[in-house]
């Protein structure tokens, strides 16, 4: 294994390096393990989750997804792949949807994070959650929180005039057409195949908003 400064790396550098490229090859094993002689490198982070200020002290390798699921016990966001390939972990961070498995929690000092639990609960559903139920926009339910977080954020993106790959005119305001919805939602996989129903749920909400 090539050595690139295993000895010289301070623990502070290890943190920065891990944050920049956690998957980089050739990282010395001790750094990849994220540990100094006395254990994991810990860091404090405080962020707002679903409107509530949360203070955490985390192993710096902890993804935002695992911070939520394992530390805050907000298990609504799902881990389908842990590689940013499926969208099940989608959260809305500082107003934009992201794959929370692809970002480290310590990168989110002062971030405003909204998870599926922040949109609504069984006694008070968010309109998008209610629309998913009405249109049966889910089956097993595992991709569903990510679809709903994405769905809410997608409609906000369209409303904000952000174009997509299928927007015919970059100077015109995009509309929440089925084609726009399908394009923008394509990072959220649903293996049960509820896509047709999800588009209907989102179209209904988009119509209501318009």
């Amino acid at each position: 294994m090539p050595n690139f400064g295993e000895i010289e790396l301070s623990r502070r550098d290890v943190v920065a390096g891990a944050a920049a490229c956690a998957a980089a090859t050739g990282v010395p094993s001790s750094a990849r393990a994220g540990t100094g002689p006395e254990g994991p490198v810990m860091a404090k982070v405080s962020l707002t989750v679903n409107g509530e200020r949360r203070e955490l002290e985390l192993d710096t390798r902890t993804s935002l997804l695992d911070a939520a699921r394992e530390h805050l016990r907000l298990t609504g966001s799902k881990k389908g792949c842990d590689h940013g390939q499926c969208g099940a972990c989608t959260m809305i961070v500082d107003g934009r949807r992201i794959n929370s498995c692809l970002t480290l929690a310590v990168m989110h000092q002062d971030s405003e994070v909204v998870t599926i639990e922040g949109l609504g609960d069984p006694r008070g559903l968010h309109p998008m959650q209610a629309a998913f139920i009405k249109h049966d926009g889910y089956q097993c339910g595992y991709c569903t929180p990510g679809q709903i977080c994405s769905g809410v954020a997608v409609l906000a993106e369209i409303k904000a005039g952000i174009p997509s790959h299928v927007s015919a005119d970059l100077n015109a305001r995009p509309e929440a057409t089925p084609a726009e919805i399908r394009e923008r939602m394509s990072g959220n996989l649903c293996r049960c195949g509820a896509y047709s129903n999800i588009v209907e749920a989102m179209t209904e909400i988009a119509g209501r908003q318009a």
Partner: protein
Amino acid sequence: MKFETPAGQNPIDQLKVVGRSTDRIDGKYKTTGTAPYAYERHDVVPNQAYGYVLGAGIAKGRLRGMDVAAAWKAPGVLAVLTTLDIPKLGLGKMNTANLFGGAEVQHYHQAIAVVVAETFEQARAASFLIRPDYAPEDGRFDLAAEARSAKPVGADSAEGSGGGPEDRVGDFEGAFAAAAVKLDETYTTPDETHAMLEPHATIAAWQGDRLTLWTSNQMIAWSKGSVAKILGIPPENVRVDSPYIGGGFGAKLFVRADAVIAALAAKAARRPVKLALTRPLIANNTTHRPATIQRIRIGATRDGTITAIAHESTSGNLPEGRPETAVDQTKLLYAGANRLTAMRLARLDLPEGNAMRAPGEAPGLMALEVAMDEMAERLGLDPVAFRVKNDTQVDPGHPERRFSHRDLVGCLRLGAERFGWARRSAKPGQVRDGQWLVGLGVAAGFRNNLLTKSAARVRLDGRGILTVETDMTDIGTGSYTIIAQTVAEMMGVSLDQVVVRLGDSDFPASAGSGGQWGANNATAGVYAACVKLREAVAQRLGVNSADAAFADGEVRAGNRGTPLAQAAAAGELVAEDGIEYGDIAKSHQQSTFAGHFVEVGVDVDTAEVRVRRMLAVCAAGRILNPKSARSQVIGGMTMGVGSALMEELAVDKKRGFFVNHDLATYEVPVHADIPHQEVIFLDEVDPMSSPMKAKGVGELGICGVGAALANAVYNATGVRVRDYPITLDKLLDRLPDAA
């Protein structure tokens, strides 16, 4: 309750709740992220440690040793358990390869070690420090090469399709030789992976010699027995709990490495352990749908009457593995006096081939229904008319066996009408819409309906709440809701008076979820328990159960109405029963049918295929909840689009593994691939299926749809691709002139 004769009139026929399009009762949990899946159950047991599984880096050979010293020393590590620490474990139900134990490596990414640590990050990091020392051996990884030495093998998919190594009716060879019009073509389907969104995951905890597994599993009773067998402990010491399952499609029909290794790791660490198979491990560590090479021969008279039909399939698997039962539907789908079906199995050292959604029929119909399209063209017949002409109301190999109910013709005719089939150009490559070559395709869908026993327990409390308990699972199929509908209908209450508890092996054993047998059998078991509860209620209230009507929360006998809750005023009433079946499935063939219609556009320059419209018309008995049944069908249609256009596990034939073992490189359909989908259910009941008069639909949706799509691509372009998936490289140099 034994079901031996066709169902007569019963309370389900009221259809006050059953048969109505109903929102899922679990929807408010699934949409808010509050439905608990296996890995998330922080509440069930304290002090959970994290496991991380390491897979073998060779496809075949032995482990000479494993250096685990650095892993043990890594921070937070509680235990390192390797496959060399224990002897090879036994097999659970339907397992082919061993899940753990011993030095032999049978396939790539077979589990070889687990690290348990205080945190996920620590367990993962420590697992990277393990240094396995392999003694690799040569293996066989190329189906096409090994097909030549494949041996005839009979098999049952355990999901309703199967047959002997070679099954014959009449004289196929003679009739085929004499046929006026013939087809003899070979089709291939690739290896596919289930790719359910929730990885295999388990939390394991020991309490003395008793083991509890909170896991993600479709078949609770099977798995309880399998875990006991694999670990060598009494079944009564095992509890399996899976209230929510994030998709399975057959991948979670049986116990996999996550459950076994979590149990062993929890023992080693003396702590409850939770672990999930990482996504990149799943395609090679677990099972997959095996690739097939299928030869189909059809002979017919000039007017299109099939006189000879043969379907032979070759697939590969590990030693002791079974073939993909791709030929079975060909015994039953069309008439014809002379028939041959055969399966051959090549030995491969790839990961274990096993059941994936509609094993057998899904790849089998992808070949057969293209062959039927090709044959129709040779005959100069419309593909719908050719199928209608060769419909059969009896099992062609056993004409004394009629279908219990079969309306494939109705599916095809209604579908043709609704889809605008008459506008299809019989000559391919004729329709242009701007940049797109447009084509329509049709195929028949076919999947058997299986009867299997299923039990449940129903409780009535003093508030009039009915709680049903069964180890039935809901893998997205809608079990919670149809079970609640069944109880509500039987007991005359509204849905909000019913509580459904599923997936716990402490509950009565159900049919489980597989082979599209769940809905009919599980609700029939609940029906049986409700019949018993109705008797107990009537007895408690002092009325004759035969005269009692259960409606609007009341029990009515004569002019008297008593609140149902009153029957439990003096204490909870509990009834437990199940459904069992006599010979009714032997005397009659029970199957489900569909007409699949697809419209595609093929880009005239790039050969990109886009699905423009899809319609499935289904005949599957009574539809218990049209809303969730429709979702099941569109889900199958969506997976069928994947099979036809993109899904393929790429085999590294030198090193022996599936290369594209994640969700970025194994492509499944995304939102942008799927248009609005239409489903029509024919209004029918099948009194031979159960008191519910329902049949399965969970797999019917995928059966035939890939062929309909392939036929649409042909109709659009005139290019016949017989090797799935139909990727643009297979079309590009054969497209009609773009000008």
